[in-house]
């Protein structure tokens, strides 16, 4: 009580210098470079263009290749240089123009897995649709081929599992943003992406790298879970990893109900927290003011 007044005078000058050093520390922290963001991990090929940054290319996994190894020899007459007189010259998406069948000469297993997977099925559907003439999908919604996920010119080799994983999360997120957001809110995403835990699951650890399966089938999902959770049973596959109804089929009423329930509980809990914390913060604050008032009045 009285001691408070005396003491406070004693440490006042000290407190001033303490405050200054605290401010200095805060400014230091503010000046530190902000930690890596997902955006920074996106490959330079995020915007497909027709021009190649040769510096980045030389540092990439394919950096020692000559252009012809992938793009073929112009002299053979099989590949044509794009017509510079054509009004669409350099306007089309470079990724769409390349024939990715050429990748299989070196990456055969990946290529075959891709052909078995969901992305290839989507591509097939898209091609049959466009043959009918109903393909009006925007570029960002089109089925992915090799180049949509991998940068032929800039993808680096010898990355660690976590580095590849972080890049993967942002690459997958370009077409599946709701899934990336929910993954990052899940334990897997926090441990793997945020904390760099190489034992935690990235996208492809559950969905398969080139198979890209949706895991709606319980047996496939269980096999995926059991790769890390050997004791998992079928009930375990019903734990919601992506609590979002985005891209969910209309007839999947069960998962829709589960996601809705999770949201309702979240909202109710938020309301409870706000009410209880709000009440006790107000209660304590007014109480503090009253006691200060009494203290100061006694000192008059």
């Amino acid at each position, binding site marked *: *009580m009285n001691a*408070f007044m005396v003491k406070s005078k004693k440490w006042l000058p000290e407190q001033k210098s303490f405050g200054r050093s605290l401010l200095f520390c805060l400014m230091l922290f503010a000046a*530190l470079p*902000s*930690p890596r963001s997902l955006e920074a991990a996106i490959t330079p090929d995020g915007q497909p263009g027709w021009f190649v940054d040769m510096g980045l290319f030389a540092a990439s996994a394919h950096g020692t290749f000559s252009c012809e190894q992938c793009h073929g020899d112009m002299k053979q007459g099989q590949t044509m240089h794009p017509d510079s007189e054509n009004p669409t010259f350099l306007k089309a998406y470079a990724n769409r123009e390349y024939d990715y069948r050429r990748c299989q000469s070196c990456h055969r297993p990946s290529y075959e897995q891709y052909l078995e997977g969901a992305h290839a099925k989507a591509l097939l559907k898209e091609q049959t649709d466009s043959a009918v003439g109903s393909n009006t999908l925007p570029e960002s919604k089109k089925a992915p081929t090799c180049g949509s996920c991998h940068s032929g010119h800039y993808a680096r080799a010898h990355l660690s599992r976590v580095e590849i994983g972080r890049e993967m999360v942002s690459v997958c997120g370009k077409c599946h943003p709701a899934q990336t957001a929910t993954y*990052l809110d899940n*334990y897997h995403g*926090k*441990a793997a992406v*945020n*904390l*760099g*835990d190489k*034992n*935690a699951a990235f996208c492809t650890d559950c969905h398969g790298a080139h198979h890209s399966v949706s895991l709606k089938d319980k047996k496939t999902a269980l096999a995926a879970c059991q790769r890390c*959770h050997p*004791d*998992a*049973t079928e*009930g*375990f*596959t*019903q*734990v*919601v990893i992506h*609590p979002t109804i985005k891209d969910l089929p209309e007839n999947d009423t069960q998962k829709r109900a*589960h996601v809705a*329930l*999770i949201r309702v*509980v*979240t909202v109710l*809990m*938020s309301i*409870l*927290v706000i009410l*209880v*914390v709000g009440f*006790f*913060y107000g*209660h*304590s604050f*007014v*109480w*503090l*003011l*009253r*006691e*200060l008032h*009494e*203290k100061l009045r006694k000192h008059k």
Partner: protein
Amino acid sequence: MTTQEKQPPETFVRFSPLQRLLHVAVMIGFTGLAITGFSLKFSDQWWAGGFAWLVGGAGHLAYLHRFFAVITYGCVLVHILWLFYFKLVLKGSITGPQSLFPKVQDIKDMFQHMGYFFGKRRIPRFNRFTYWEKFDYLALFLGMNTMGLTGLFLWFPEFFSTLLPGYFINLAQVLHLYEAILAVALKFVVHILTTHLRPEIFPVDKSIFNGKTTREKMMHEHPGELDSL
């Protein structure tokens, strides 16, 4: 005041050694849980990522969180055992006026106390435990049990998903997070404020650490209890 100080002040025992020990253990356990838990929740922030890096990554963070959880819930179990001992062997009352059992009188006390905040009414004549102490205790007691249960769901999801539908793990996660926010927001602000920052007791109310309280403090803070002795 000077004449009073010459005589040794009359002291009363407010907390038993076991209660004091449990308080310190819970303090350590709760703080550890809060730091390790929020380091995962906010792991996209530099400070949380930095702390996780300091303890050696996500695996160690999880291990530490469970270590502190075992300490904290161990305290709850010891406390429950003590409650039985107190009731059955010591023949104490766990629902009487001097207990932590919530009563209608506590609601009345709260409104009267709030009237005092605005200078309308006098401070109520509190018993051994005031309404905010009862709330502190009961919120922590109930909270630790629900946090413990939801925490077990998240610790052993493979087991619990065989007993209950899978989305219960998600619900456990939501409850665990929001209760953690509630607990930290109350304990680290309201509890610190009522036991440290109030001018009446600034800088610290030591009775939870040395177990003692004086007649003067009893008259002031718990007159109802003093009357009953």
